[in-house]
């Protein structure tokens, strides 16, 4: 049997797809655990950003984070986690798309601290897009939308940046032990 044939999207092998699925599982588990313990606004972004950037570090291919976001979104929706109903999918997929886009332009992202913090904060802020869309649909005035989104996004960005900031040290340790592809093995 031929090994390393692509399994998904003509890009990921079965092993990589499973690993990304496990990253999505970790997002779901930590989200459920934190919801029971903390209830702080935006706290779920902490582990979500960690695993989204981590997924890109473990599988350095374009679409890795998006796949994790997509699976985590579908599973969270099906488990009835989060108050947003089907919109919860957008809350997962948009930060994931942002991470993938950033890593496409800067492949060394998962191993660098400052870029991770910046991408973590900005990707968490993309969650606000659904909030803005909803506010616009409801006919709220522009000024109030801006203030509302600023308040709700600040916490998400802070937690997202903190979560992403912890990735480089973990990625470097895994790379040093040759458990995940190193900087020279980027495949995107």
């Amino acid at each position: 049997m031929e090994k390393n044939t692509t399994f998904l999207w003509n890009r990921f092998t079965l092993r990589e797809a499973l690993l990304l699925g496990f990253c999505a599982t970790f997002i779901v588990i930590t989200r459920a655990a934190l919801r029971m313990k903390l209830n702080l606004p935006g706290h779920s972004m902490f582990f979500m950003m960690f695993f989204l950037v981590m997924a890109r570090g473990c599988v350095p291919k374009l679409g890795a984070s998006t796949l994790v976001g997509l699976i985590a979104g579908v599973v969270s929706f099906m488990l009835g986690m989060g108050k947003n109903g089907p919109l919860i999918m957008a809350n997962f997929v948009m930060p994931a798309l942002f991470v993938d886009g950033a890593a496409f332009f800067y492949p060394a992202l998962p191993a660098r601290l400052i870029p991770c913090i910046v991408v973590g904060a900005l990707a968490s802020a993309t969650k606000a897009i659904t909030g803005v869309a909803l506010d616009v649909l409801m006919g709220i005035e522009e000024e109030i939308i801006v203030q509302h989104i600023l308040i709700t996004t600040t916490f998400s960005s802070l937690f997202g940046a903190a979560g992403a900031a912890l990735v480089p040290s973990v990625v470097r340790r895994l790379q040093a032990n040759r458990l995940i592809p190193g900087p020279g093995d980027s495949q995107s």
Partner: protein
Amino acid sequence: MGKADLQKRSKKVRSSDYACQFREIDSPVHRIGAGWKLLLGMAFCAAAISVREPWSVGVVVLIGAVYYFAARLTLWDLWRDVRFFLIQMALIIGLYLFKHGMAGLWPGTRTSIQIVLFFVPGIVFLRTTQTSQLMRGLRKIMPYRLAFLIFICFRFVPVFARDIREIAMAQRIRGARLSPRELLNPRSWRDLFHCLMIPLIIRALKTADEASLSAEARGFGLRPERTYYDPEGVRIQNTEVRSQNTEVRSQNTEVRMKRQKTERKQHSEAT
């Protein structure tokens, strides 16, 4: 009333453990198909967005309440589901009051109510639709490889939850600061990642290796369409091969015996 009765009654009233949890009861809304529920929800969301006048908001609130309670959900369930919106409601009303004074009270309240109403169909959908029903629906609209990954994610939630508990327990014995109280302190987050997340990711890498090898050994993912490993078929094939082997062996034995007989005959004739 006994303590057990009180507990039973309290459990009945507080019927859900968390927001949007599926309720295993029979109701008219439970019996509606998932597709119809989504269509109804879309129509309701459109109505929730478009209303502006107090009377029309009242009508949509009434329809929403009828839809919610027709699913035999309780006031406790409603509290569980909408309490997340209270902060948002207070924030929006506060911003309107800040900008327009008392004139902003109605637009702020209306917008807050509209936001809650917008999410009611989604909440009722999750409350009344089983995960298995959702999965069956997913299979129809999603490529099987993606659906497989989603099922794997579901399957491994309890497995990794147990792994996390085990690793955390072992690391705490070694002195890592991983208790819920210690984790509130950001200085413990380093331990969280180095003592819990790294072992967890290594375990995930190992599990992905083993699971992919196992699936590939069964020929999974070789064809564009979904195929299933059939252990019964393999067993029958094995049995057939074994019986064929036995037949061949008995034939061989017969041939050998005939040959020996002939040789013995020739030998006796010669002597």
